[in-house]
């Protein structure tokens, strides 16, 4: 039966051009980010290799002083924009994926336990979720970022920036997972296979994670995909606001922040290309999530 289900999903995938295109875009960008150290023309973090004379080179042209050519131009310090973006994408994607991973582990575990145990555990977790849902998640993320920055000594804040980002976005995003998993668990735990497992004397932990969890994977998958797009945008927003990835290790959001400063002087490319890349990533993940939601929804079949 497992094979049949998979081929059904795959059929829906290859007959949906939007899903195919957005997944190809995402995979290409993801691979480019993954292999950035090998494919990027220069190392943007190696301050010694930068030539200030190359600063503000427009795209598609050679620098007027040095004659060096940069496809998408350079920033104020003469950093090649293609390289900076490849490395920036690496940070954006890494933070996004790890943050969603954290939110997923946290939310799924809390949701499973709340739904399975019920009682006061359920009440506490769900009230906490309600209170957190009162606030937009970007606000929670900023707050966690602020608290985390306060707990880290000032001289280590830049080094810990990535971890702080993952933590703040992950902690702001677990509620969706918990609520969905809880309501599915409430349905599943009454079913016969769970009762059978209980009669066989399996432990609660085993029932939750080995029996119930595999049955509710598909809604979790959908939420994870949609959360990934939101997490990537949240990361860019925090970095743009200056409380995310530092300028020494810029993500796409940091590059956009830097680019905004030069917009008035007419150096538009420092802003435009990172912004377009961010949009492309967010859009492709979003469209993938939409497709996955429809494809896994039994009501739409």
């Amino acid at each position, binding site marked *: 039966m497992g094979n049949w289900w998979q081929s059904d999903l795959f059929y829906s995938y290859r007959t949906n051009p939007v899903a195919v295109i957005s997944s190809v875009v995402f995979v290409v960008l993801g691979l480019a980010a993954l292999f950035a150290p090998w494919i990027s023309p220069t190392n943007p973090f190696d301050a010694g290799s930068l030539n200030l004379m190359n600063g503000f080179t427009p795209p598609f042209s050679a620098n007027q002083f040095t004659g060096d050519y940069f496809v998408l131009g350079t920033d104020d310090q003469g950093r090649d924009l293609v390289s900076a973006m490849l490395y920036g994408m690496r940070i954006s994607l890494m933070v996004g994926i790890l943050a969603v991973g954290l939110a997923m582990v946290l939310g799924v575990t809390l949701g499973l336990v709340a739904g399975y145990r019920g009682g006061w555990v359920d009440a506490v977790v769900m009230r906490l979720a309600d209170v957190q849902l009162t*606030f937009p998640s970007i606000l929670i993320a900023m707050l966690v970022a602020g608290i985390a920055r*306060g707990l880290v000594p000032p001289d280590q804040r830049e080094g810990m920036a990535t971890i702080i980002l993952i933590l703040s976005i992950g902690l702001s995003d677990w509620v969706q997972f918990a609520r969905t998993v809880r309501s599915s668990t409430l349905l599943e735990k009454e079913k016969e296979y769970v009762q059978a497992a209980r009669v066989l004397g399996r432990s609660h932990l085993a029932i939750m994670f080995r029996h119930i969890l595999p049955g509710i994977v598909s809604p979790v998958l959908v939420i994870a995909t949609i959360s990934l797009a939101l997490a990537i945008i949240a990361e860019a*927003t925090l970095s743009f606001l200056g409380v995310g990835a530092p300028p020494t290790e810029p993500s796409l959001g940091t590059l956009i922040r830097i680019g905004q400063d030069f917009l008035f002087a007419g150096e538009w490319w420092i802003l435009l290309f990172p912004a377009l890349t961010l949009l492309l990533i967010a859009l492709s993940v979003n469209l993938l999530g939409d497709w996955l939601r429809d494809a896994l929804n039994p009501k739409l079949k």
Partner: protein
Amino acid sequence: MAGNSHGLFVWNGHMALIIIQRLLQSSLVLLLVAFVAFSMFRFVGDPVENLLGQEATLEDRAILTERLGLNDPLPVQYIRFVGKVLSWDFGVSYRTGVPVADMISERLPATLELALISAIFAMVLGISLGVYTAINRRGWLANFVMSTSLIGVSLPTFLIGILLIWVFSVELGWLPSFGRGETTDIGGWDTGLLTIEGLRSLVLPAVTLGLYQMTLIMRLVRSEMLEVLREDYIRFAFARGLHTKSIHQRHAVPNTLLPVITVAGLQLGSIIAFAIITESVFQWPGIGLMFINAVYFVDIPVMSAYLILVALMFVTINLIVDMAYFAIDPRIRSGAGGGK
């Protein structure tokens, strides 16, 4: 269903009970938020060191510790914290040494004006475009508006702001890109709504902040309206030969507005939160910019004050939305909704 025949604001026992219940829930949420704010102040960094700097003598530190009451048991400290908050005392900013309450009252008008104008922008344009696209479902303009709105939803707020600055400030030079312009002081409220420069400065930030909410409201109104237009009473109204315009205005539109009020009310909360991003893009001197600077410099008293303030706003908005719901929908008011 006797409640249906009553006037709009009938106060009955059922309604009173629910409102008291909501008030209790809201107070509980606020106490919880105050606890988070208190824990931040107490445990993130050392408040004494942050206030005095590292060169302070042991004696100074002991005096301040005693004065802040940090030697008392924690529950006592928490209760004192809540008491202070209730009397609008949020302590002193670590960075500027100014009382946080003063910073807030100085900056709150900027944020509230921005939020108000963008909420009006979102509501007015969202509802009218929603109604328009629903009525002219097959028109090219309606389709164009709908597909453009999809792009608007997927753009992050800060990119919308930058895009608007690029087009209208840098390229066209029509509108200012930062600050509030000229403000006038009326009775302690610094308003930017009375000068041309102030109004011009408001345009881009308000559009940036309201655009997402506008598309959301528009799409909601459109789908509600399409739903309502399929209802029997609308079709009977057409059958009776009433004018199309009057059917739309007097029967269809009012019935789409109920869900819109809920969503729009709740969106007002996110407008205040997303104002942080907009204020940062446009260097708008409101409490959002104050908050993000506080996060950057780890200015804990400012952060916790902002948290409490925003929670207060959110809880109030939710309460008002609930009550508006009561006032508009007779089924909930009479308690008949629960019996169905």
